[in-house]
């Protein structure tokens, strides 16, 4: 199966840069899978888990991302994550911290559009917290 270049970057560092066969991305309007030769797509992300299949059908690498962007273009897939933590390193305490941050965002929101966005983030984080731990 064809592979494509995949990069996962957070503001602090480049986490993954390799050729992979399949990536599942938690898009704002639903999860989507990216294979080689995917049509150009740009999507915002919701807090969730990115699954990276180095070979399709193999065991995926899982990383928690806290929102950001995915950019699919002919040169591959780039995920710009606000924060990315490998699932092995993620624990309840880190998620709780993210939830607290999100709660502050909701409280600080200056207009309705922003409040809705922050609230959506918060809800997704809570859901994730419930499903993981």
């Amino acid at each position, binding site marked *: 199966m064809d592979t494509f270049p995949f*990069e996962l970057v*957070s*503001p*602090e560092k480049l986490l993954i840069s390799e050729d992979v066969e399949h990536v599942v991305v938690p898009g704002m309007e639903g999860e989507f899978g990216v294979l080689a030769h995917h049509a*150009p797509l740009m*999507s*915002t992300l919701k807090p969730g888990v990115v699954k990276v299949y180095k070979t399709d059908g193999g065991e995926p690498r899982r990383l928690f991302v806290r929102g950001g962007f995915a950019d699919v273009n*002919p040169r591959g897939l780039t995920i710009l994550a606000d924060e990315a933590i490998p699932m092995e390193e993620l624990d309840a305490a880190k998620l709780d911290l993210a939830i607290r941050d999100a709660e502050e965002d909701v409280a600080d929101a*200056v207009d309705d559009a922003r409040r809705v966005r922050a609230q959506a983030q918060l809800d997704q984080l809570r859901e994730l917290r419930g499903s993981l731990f």
Partner: protein
Amino acid sequence: MASLKDLRNRIASVKATQKITKAMQMVAAAKLRRAELAAAAARPYAERMERVLANLASSMRDAPGAPQLLAGTGEDRRHLLVVMTADRGLAGGFNASIARLARDEARRLIAEGKEVRFLCVGRKGADILRRQFPGKIDDVISLREVKTLGYSTANEIGERIIREYQDGGFDVATLFFSKFRSVVSQIPTAQQVIPAQIPEATGEDQLNGAIYEYEPSEEEILEVLLPKNVSIQIFKGLLENAASEQGARMSAMDNATRNAGEMIKKLSLQYNRTRQAQITKELIEIISGAEAL
């Protein structure tokens, strides 16, 4: 002529100073390595971000209803200069050269009849600018308490600037920081962040006629991306600055250590000469005393 005791004291004090500058140099060298790594690690994100933005913005810039962060307020009257310096001195010309660049820019803008305000990140720049532009400094953000410079710190500053922008506080925001080239060369740089300066999409990014799909929509993505871009530029500036500061301090302290060494050499020479002269004088006194008998 200084007495022997004076000379001894001076040598001791210069030696103590040399020990301090030497220690500071080594600390700066260690910190520099870490700061350089952090700056290098942050570069990929900023680059990718720029590419994504370039793709997105080229089609949006002239469209009606483009976000203010991209299109501007339509005016160019009130400027916010975000001056990023260190919180500590003893780093050679590091703080002064950033402040000088900001000052020249501010003078130019004022001469053109524009309004200028400052937001200082780092106390040192504020100390210098406060004297020349009293009452124009909105606030000083000190990063003294910040142990490791993270994206969240930059994000806080970014959000604050954007809030002010949306409340109609200013029309144009420019960052001032020092780009890190090498230990001996840091380049004070001005970079406009609001309205966003986005390079044209390069030929490489053309999609061979394919059309991007946007989820949820182009506007909404841009709406989230643009504020993020401001924070990222600030983050990049802060990291570059951190590396530059340590580099500047390292070379400044290296110089200081060398100068102290030279001074010790000179003083020791003077001390030994004086001591010998005194011994000779005493001998002469003894001999001539003996001859007189």
